[in-house]
């Protein structure tokens, strides 16, 4: 009976797997082996086997190049960078590229943007940090990322900070929660660094955690909008408790000469902490693979289990081994074959995505998208702030991923889902497509101007010997790959039709590629 059932299952599964065996598309998929390269691959592929889900094929070099640029530095590769990588015969070129990107300035710029979302960095309502505090806070985050400050020390520096919002910028953490009440601060800490939503806790647990944040003082100085955040020792001596209860239920003794936030922070960042490492490795995984092992990545709770507990555990161990070096964690994930799978699934199983059987398509972040459009066309965007402060001047060449302040208004960024930075939730950033976005990209004067007035594209046309060469260079510039024969033929036919005259065909080629899924999505 048992054996027959086994056969029956095989019979059901085999056609399923066969159906999924699609012909290889050499533009996006490579024939490279997907045999595991390291522990991540072994763990993910084992889980996939268990679920009888076939993983996608490996992606091509061109797909990898573009993917890793966008994911790691929020920036498109230039045509030259693309050409160099694609013609490089070095078998370790993917590994080398990962190392090179992790060392680039844009790495810190792009990840400071991400942290500013989570930390609600915004000059105006409702966070009201004020422009110079925003600039200082952003600079601190960027510098910490540039220096690759150990993650545990990064968090401790934020949680235990005291001083001026302009001169000790991490204190702005305590100025950007919904209110300055201890419970609101505790909720912000739980969400940001423990990945849990305290409103789903029993109320006593949050009340207990709030004790650690109950002895903060805030005072003004003679400088306009400066604010000092400090440990109010007098208040603590007058009314502070002798003991407090941590979120894991442990009771700790408090010493009158120690800021209770330090006690909390030391508990939080200890390797035994049940939340801390889990939260950050799960976040990093979701940033690179589009989905958390626990999903949403900021909603960790007992009834939201990880889809692959071994993978989560493995990443935690790797983080400890790397002494909280987040770049090492990035490097490990980026070098895995799981990360380097194609975005074209080989399985129709609706759960394939949850188990990481392919790289998920995601629309580019609003800032990354507008930067990419600027890079291709050699144009700039103008940004300004409603607050007339010297710190709010934004030079025209400024990248959008480097904007510090969430209060800078921009129709484009808002339309394409930039988060308002009101809650610190990952889901605030939206990459959902809408008709308004499509209208804008297909037909707005903003995009049309960028293409038609682009000096860079004009130079590209002038510097090419033939329309074919121009088309090839346009492909390298926009999609970071060479066109296929079929694509060149389609374009040639179009340029010889009555629809377009002269340069219009090239303009329309640029327009079409900008509007393609390949350009608009991480893939």
């Amino acid at each position, binding site marked *: 009976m048992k054996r027959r059932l086994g056969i029956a299952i095989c019979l059901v599964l085999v056609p399923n797997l066969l159906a999924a065996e699609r012909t290889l598309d050499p533009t996006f998929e490579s024939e490279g082996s997907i045999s595991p390269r390291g522990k991540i691959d072994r763990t993910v592929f084992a889980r996939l086997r268990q679920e009888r889900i076939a993983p996608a094929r490996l992606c091509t070099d061109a797909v990898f190049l573009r993917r890793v640029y966008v994911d790691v530095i929020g920036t498109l590769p230039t045509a030259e960078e693309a050409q160099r990588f694609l013609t490089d015969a070095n078998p370790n070129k993917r590994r080398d590229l990962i190392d090179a990107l992790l060392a680039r300035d844009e790495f810190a710029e792009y990840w400071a943007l991400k942290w500013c979302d989570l930390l609600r960095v915004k000059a105006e309502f*409702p966070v009201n940090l004020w422009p110079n505090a925003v600039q200082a806070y952003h600079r601190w985050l960027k510098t910490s990322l540039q220096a690759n400050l150990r993650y545990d020390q990064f968090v401790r520096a934020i949680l235990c900070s005291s001083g001026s919002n302009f001169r000790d910028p991490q204190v702005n953490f305590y100025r950007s929660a*919904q209110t300055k009440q201890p419970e609101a601060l505790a*909720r912000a800490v739980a969400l940001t660094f423990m990945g849990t939503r305290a409103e789903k806790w029993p109320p006593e647990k949050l009340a207990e955690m709030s004790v650690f944040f109950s002895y903060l003082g805030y005072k003004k100085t003679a400088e306009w909008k400066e604010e000092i955040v400090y440990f109010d020792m007098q208040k603590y001596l007058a009314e502070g408790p002798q003991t407090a209860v941590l979120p894991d239920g442990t009771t700790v003794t408090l010493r009158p000469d120690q800021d209770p936030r330090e006690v909390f922070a030391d508990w939080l960042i200890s390797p035994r902490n049940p939340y801390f490492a889990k939260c950050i490795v799960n976040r990093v995984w979701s940033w690179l693979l589009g989905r958390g092992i626990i999903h949403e990545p900021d909603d960790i709770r007992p009834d939201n289990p990880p889809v692959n507990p071994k993978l989560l555990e493995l990443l935690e161990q790797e983080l400890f081994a790397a002494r909280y070096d987040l770049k090492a964690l990035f490097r490990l994930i980026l070098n895995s074959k799981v990360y380097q799978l194609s975005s074209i699934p080989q399985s129709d199983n609706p759960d394939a995505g949850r188990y990481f059987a392919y790289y998920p398509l995601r629309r580019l972040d609003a800032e990354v998208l507008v930067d990419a459009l600027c890079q291709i066309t050699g144009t700039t965007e103008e940004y300004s702030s409603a607050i007339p402060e010297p710190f709010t001047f934004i030079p025209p060449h400024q990248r959008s991923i480097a904007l510090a302040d969430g209060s800078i208004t921009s129709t484009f960024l808002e*339309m394409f889902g930039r988060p308002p930075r009101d809650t610190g939730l990952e889901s605030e950033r939206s990459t959902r497509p809408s008709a308004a976005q*499509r209208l804008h990209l297909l037909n707005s*004067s903003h995009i049309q101007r960028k293409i038609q007035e682009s000096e860079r594209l004009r130079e590209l046309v002038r510097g090419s010997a033939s329309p074919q060469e121009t088309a090839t260079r346009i492909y390298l510039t926009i999609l970071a790959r060479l066109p296929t024969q079929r694509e060149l033929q389609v374009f040639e036919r*179009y340029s010889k039709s009555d629809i377009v005259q002269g340069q219009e065909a090239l303009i329309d080629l640029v327009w079409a*590629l900008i509007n393609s899924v390949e350009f608009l999505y991480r*893939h």
Partner: protein
Amino acid sequence: MNAKPQHTDGRLRSYRGGDSLLGMLGIPITRRSLLQGSLLGATGFWLTDPLGARADAEPPAAKAKAVIHIWLWGGPSHIDTFDPKPDLGNDYCGPLRATTATSTAGVALGELLPLLAKQFDKYTIIRSSTHGQNGHETAAYMVQTGNQTGGKLVYPHVGAVVSKFTGYEAGYKGLIPPYIVLTQPQGRFSESGFLGPRYKPFATGGDPNAKRFLVEGVVAPGISDERQRGRRELLTRLNSLALASQGSEQMEAVAKAEQEAYDLILGDAGKVFDLAQEDDALRARYGRNTLGQSCLMARRLVEKGVRFVTINSGGWDTHKEHFEAMRTMLPQLDKGVSTLLEDLADRGLLESTIVWCSGEFGRTPQVQWEAPWNGGRNHFGAVFSTLVAGGGFRGGAVVGASDSRASEVVDRPVYPWDMIGSMYELLGIDPEGEIAHPQGMDVALLPKASDGVEVGGRLKEIM
């Protein structure tokens, strides 16, 4: 933080028993106790609507479905338009000393509004609009949000509130967004306020009076329909990753968004912006200028179910050469608005469409003849005029009055919250209700006497 909106279904939650202490203590509120309470809080102004808190907490039934908001940015003179004082002579009236009689005895308009005078049965003039602010930003914010500036909250424009309560979250299905601005957004304040970018109006750009109305995103200058079609086909053929990923849920969402976009660009949905479909004679009656054709455009949008259209008409900040400007601009306003009212009425749309026309304030009734103004008028927030029609507002009436020099309100003040509260009521939105702030709190839509603002009461006399 991480608080979700408590109710995202776009419906109002009403006060039960208001926020009065008696209500909170469970003591029944009698009409009399309420009146006393209100009088104390309302600094002596007579309340037209003593029942500030209704016993019935259900949202009012909607009479109006849409609003056409004709925004005269800069502040038009009240004395030259809807509140003429011809006896004051040159010092006040300059060369515009004649008036035009309306069908109602004793009610006259300025001499440059003869067509509107003939349509007086369709609208009401409020001659006692007031807020006392003389700065453009503050006044424009108050008149269009119905709230005061200052607090921590940045309130949304009435159009954003209307699109929240009657737009996509309330079952609106149109491809054309429910809240539209012809043709440029306000610029000086964000219409969406704390509601966030989803509630921003769609600003068309372009000029409805141009040979082709180049609506941003819908009509691209210099690209023929043939080339649009050619491009679309080129994109389909070159969209290699989309071809390789066909059938996925995500590609379906992309395809749907693209289909909707092309319905506007090449399909029927975008035809609403094609004014060439209108009869030339009617277009001429509206006036072949941007304001006139915007009025016509607004009618076409409302016909398609759009909820709120703002016609953002600039140029009313006439510090200098005021009378020359009025001789050009008022005839355009006269043609555009009078034809709009007539056209809406002819099509049976006036009953369900509020037409609301004003600027952020009026202008100094006394002409500044001295240099450097040489015949100009300055900002004036103490009293100004507002035209309202349709959607449950009665026509042929005058609300309130200014004094003999058009310098202050002498009867029945109408504050921005009174005006907007009246519109909300007609639109089925509880003016005393709350709106969900994205951070989880609930915010009162409009201020009340108990908040320390002066209140004139909603416009019951014409509703």
